């Protein structure tokens, strides 16, 4: 009896608090009233919320709602005005003059001016501040205040992603000047100019934001945003079905698992209450071939390897086909992808021919052999990936089986992440690795880091030691070109070179799998498009008054 008491109590309390809404109503629209609350969840809590210091996803997601930059990305991943109404770029690309929006206020009521822009620059370039983003500002010579609403930034040399990768979050000078940026109170109580302002953070429980009534794009209609910390993905999904959270992957970086998306959505509990979407994310997975290894320094061999791997089967079996095969390092960047390049086909016969041309002949043991430096060598290598990523472990197993068909013996080695990085990747002690890249919308930093021949040192990202003079030249040139149209041409050229040389076997780009409660309206998710960070248009989301669930 004594055990049942709380249960009975709880039932009474919960039933009393319940307001049943017939889900049919969600298919109708209604008056665009303010109110209600959007609850999302994340697996890991934020570490801090100072955009200059944030190095993980959750803090970044919150910052995208709390702060604004001078510019932001539009849905085609091009620079669009934000806190800067417009900007002028000098002919040589070295001087950028920003004209700031007037009357924008920080959440504490203080007006945003050119002082804050200069201060932001000082924070990001202060060597005592633990910012991971300092190098973006390294080409800047001076930042000058030309007036309350005008800032002139002079570069030592032109910097392609100047507009989008610098000043992407503006910090309030009046709150941070003279304070210890690394440890201050601001890191847990951020104040910005964004559509939502910070209310409360209960570590490992929830982060609460509320609509900023003075937001310069208009007062957001959804009154509150809550990010719950739910460390288990299975729990997260049950919470969704139970109404404990309203969306996965709407305003933040969540995703349903491919298993959940393809197997567990076909229930009334889900279909009556939620819409689901597949959106592109700037992520791709690949196998990197170490070009220092005599096995992989021949282009024909790398092409043949790619053609021996049935990427469609991998996509189907590992993530239920919820993604698409890619041909280069661009994921879904609409302007950078060369439409004329398509992935190499899965063609075992052609692959065998290529192996033969490269000198690899089948031996008696069924394995390909070649004489390298006077010695007979079988085609054997180790494919490494990091521990704890089940899809990657599965991908490796499938690759192992498929390469066996053409006479290549693959051993799989799965290693703990930091060991993997420090003992193998940094020291280039690997044959081939299976990994993924998550890219920035701007691409300059990603491409330069991954493919320029100067980036092969410890902790740098051209760990496969790829070297191509044309690519090197293009990368340097791209870095100095602010005109997107000109950059596009060079990226297209790079794309076809990389697709031909196959330094990586590009596998696929997984989709982000989104679920949003049906009562939310006023947003568009283009299934072919990309979710733009920072989220654009959150202030336009609303819940019709008859469908509102919470009265915050």
């Amino acid at each position, binding site marked *: 009896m004594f055990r049942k008491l709380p249960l009975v109590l709880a039932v009474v309390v919960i039933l009393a608090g319940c307001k049943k809404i017939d889900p049919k109503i969600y298919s109708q629209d209604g008056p665009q009233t303010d109110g209600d*609350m959007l609850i999302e969840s994340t697996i890991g809590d934020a570490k*801090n919320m100072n955009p200059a210091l944030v190095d993980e996803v959750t803090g970044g997601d919150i910052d995208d709602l709390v702060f604004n930059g001078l510019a932001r990305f539009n849905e085609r991943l091009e620079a669009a005005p934000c806190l800067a109404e417009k900007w002028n770029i000098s002919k040589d690309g070295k001087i950028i003059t920003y004209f700031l929006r007037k009357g924008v206020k920080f959440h504490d009521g203080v007006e945003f001016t050119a002082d804050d822009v200069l201060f932001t620059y000082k924070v990001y370039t202060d060597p005592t501040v633990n910012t991971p983003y300092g190098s973006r500002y390294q080409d800047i010579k001076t930042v000058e205040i030309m007036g309350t609403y005008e800032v002139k930034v002079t570069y030592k040399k032109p910097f392609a992603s100047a507009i989008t990768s610098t000043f992407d979050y503006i910090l309030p000078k009046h709150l941070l000047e003279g304070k210890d940026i690394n440890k201050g109170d601001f890191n847990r109580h951020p104040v910005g100019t964004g559509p939502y302002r910070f209310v409360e953070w209960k570590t490992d429980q929830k982060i609460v934001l509320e609509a900023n009534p003075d937001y310069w794009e208009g007062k957001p209609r959804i009154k509150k945003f809550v990010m719950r910390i739910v460390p288990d993905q299975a729990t997260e999904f049950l919470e969704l079905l139970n109404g404990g959270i309203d969306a996965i992957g709407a305003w933040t970086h969540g995703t349903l698992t491919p298993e959940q998306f393809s197997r567990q959505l076909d229930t009334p509990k889900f279909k009556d209450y939620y819409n689901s979407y597949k959106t592109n994310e700037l992520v791709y997975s690949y196998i990197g071939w170490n070009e220092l290894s005599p096995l992989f320094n021949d282009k024909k061999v790398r092409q043949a390897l790619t053609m021996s791997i049935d990427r469609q089967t991998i996509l189907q079996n590992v993530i239920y086909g919820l993604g698409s095969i890619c041909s280069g390092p661009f994921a879904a960047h609409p302007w950078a992808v060369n439409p004329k390049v398509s992935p190499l086909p899965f063609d075992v016969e052609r692959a065998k021919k290529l192996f033969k041309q490269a000198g690899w002949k089948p031996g008696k043991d069924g394995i390909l052999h070649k004489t390298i430096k006077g010695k007979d060598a079988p085609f054997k290598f180790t494919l490494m990936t990091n521990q704890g990523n089940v899809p990657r472990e599965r991908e490796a197993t499938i690759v192992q089986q498929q390469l066996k068909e053409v006479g290549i013996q693959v051993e799989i080695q799965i290693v703990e992440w930091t060991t993997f990085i420090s003992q193998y990747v940094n020291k280039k002690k690997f044959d081939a690795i299976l990994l993924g890249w998550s890219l920035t919308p701007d691409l300059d930093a990603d491409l330069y880091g991954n493919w320029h021949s100067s980036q092969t040192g410890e902790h740098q990202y051209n760990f496969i030691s790829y070297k191509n003079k044309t690519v090197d030249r293009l990368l340097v040139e791209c870095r100095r070109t602010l005109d997107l149209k000109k950059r596009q041409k060079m990226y297209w050229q790079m794309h076809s070179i990389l697709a031909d040389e196959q330094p990586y076997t590009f596998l696929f780009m997984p989709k982000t799998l989104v679920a949003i409660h049906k009562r939310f309206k006023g947003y568009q998710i283009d299934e072919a498009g990309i979710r733009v960070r920072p989220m654009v248009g959150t202030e336009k989301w609303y819940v019709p008054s008859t469908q509102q669930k919470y009265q915050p």
Partner: protein
Amino acid sequence: MRKFLIRRLLMMVPLLLGISILSFLIMHLAPGDPATLNAAMRSNIDPSYIEKLQVFYGLKDPLYLQYWHWLERFCTFDFGDSFRDSRPVLIVIAERIPATVYLSGLSLILLFVIAVPLGVGAAYYQNRFFDRFVSVFTFVGYSAPHYWVALMLMLLFGVNWGILPISGMADTNLDYLPWYSRGGDYLAHLILPLAVTTYGSLASVSRYARTSMLEVIRQDYIRTARAKGLSEFQVIFNHALRNALIPIVTLFGLFLPSVLGGAVIIETIFSWPGMGRLFWESIVSHNYPVVMGVGIILAFFTLLGNFLADIGYALLDPRVRYD
């Protein structure tokens, strides 16, 4: 007795020191470091950031020096700052205590309140239906993975029947609930995690209780008590149970640290902001100051638990004397 107590208390100092050295070593023996873990292989982050963090965290010093710095600060009850959010470790830990003690403490009490009578009953009805039933019931709880049991209960009570919340300590909208339903809301959130934690441990405690009771029932003084013509109730509860409880007290002392230590799996599945999750996440993310902090506090409470169990022993059992 007093001499013994003082000696035992003083013994805790070198023990704690040894434990701290061992945990420090083991922690650093694990491959990798927090800076690499944070920042490696992310093309939007400066590669130089890794080194910046290593310097900031003091990881560039030789290991013995790092330990010495830690020990120096520890002597002034300063556990350092968490690598995660640069807040003092003591605050990070203190934040977790209420939620942890609330769940694990209630669970521990509930566990003994249920398991001891079950065990005693099972001993009394040895090899009869009740005994078998208790065995099966408790061992099912012991063998079934917590993870699975929890998810099934969440599915049934939450998603399918809609009578209990699934995870978290309280409703997200708690602040807007009327005051009278807040208590109920907390209780409702407590039920599932409490049930799963308690059920999983019933087997061990009830077995202890059963064994200890079985031993006592066969003693001569129980036969004497029966021969005196005492009622069965008096025999069992006054004579047998009192003696049978002595090992249980030890057990309770040994379970005590778990009240602070929390339970990793339960806390993760139920999104409970407890110590177990903090400890686990800190280990995984190489958050050395927090790992050391939680480790030392747990070690202290383990030693304290043993100490209290010894005292309890002496109080309950007149045969035990520490001289």
